[in-house]
């Protein structure tokens, strides 16, 4: 007997990498952004057919940038499950780290050296 197969919900590109960066830069601690809705691991694969190639490539950049921002301690990354293969991928803004700083002059001196 054939079991019914759940149809994957349609995916679409919600925002671009530059939008994500702009939001992270302006967000207050605790602000939340859904940067993707769908099944990210599937949607970024070349074999996935849910997104046009250009959107898929942009989604790869968005996902990498979100991961980078989490490594930089700018956001927390969490996901919320809505149903089978349907997740909201959320970025939650953290307080901006203030301890790292450098003056442009130091870079210029390195350049001269």
């Amino acid at each position, binding site marked *: 007997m054939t079991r019914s197969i759940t149809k994957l919900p349609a995916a679409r590109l919600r925002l671009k*990498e*530059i939008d*994500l*960066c*702009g939001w*992270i*830069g*302006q967000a207050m601690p605790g602000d939340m952004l859904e940067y993707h809705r769908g099944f990210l691991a599937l949607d970024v694969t070349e074999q996935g057919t849910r997104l046009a190639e250009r959107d898929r490539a942009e989604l790869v950049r968005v996902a990498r*940038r979100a991961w*980078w*921002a989490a490594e*930089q301690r*700018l956001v927390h990354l969490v996901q919320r499950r809505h149903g089978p293969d349907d997740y909201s991928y959320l970025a939650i803004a953290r307080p*901006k*780290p*203030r301890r*790292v*700083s*450098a*003056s*442009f002059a130091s*870079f*210029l001196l*390195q*350049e001269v050296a």
Partner: protein
Amino acid sequence: MPHQFSPSDLQLLLLEADAEARRLVRRLRLPRAELDDIRQDLLVDLIARLPAFDPERGSLGAFAGLVLRNHATRIAAKIKRAREAFGAVPVSLDEEQPGRDGGTRGELTAEEDGLSAWLGQPVDAFAEVERRLDVERGLGLLDRRNGALCAALAHTTVESLAAQGRGSRSGLYRRLKDIRLALMAHGLKAA
């Protein structure tokens, strides 16, 4: 021998210059604050041309009238050119604002509403300090290689760096885009 001018001659020149300046201000609908400047411009030009006055060819009044009219025409043409370039309504910082106790436009215009703000220059000292802190924080997050690229781009171009063998043009632009996005994520906007 140069003509000697009596105090009454000089009085005549002042009166003629004043009358011509008022006529010009009225004709061009200039603010009252412009009157003194125009009168001075006319007088300076007239005084510079006085050595050319020949009493045998006509009266001092006629000479002054001719010189002042010519210079007034040049001033009017200059003002019209400026209006065509910058707009039909002339605005002067020295213009007194009605009902503001003699305050001029320059004195009453806040820095945030001024030309420098309109041209994108920072006018908020606190915002400027915050921006500098943001820049230093953003720069602190760049790795040594990207920091060096920023320093190099402060005085040269991507094309020059590529020509010096510091990477391919497309590679340098890719790094630059990545730096921009990283700085944006840290709250820095492009200047």
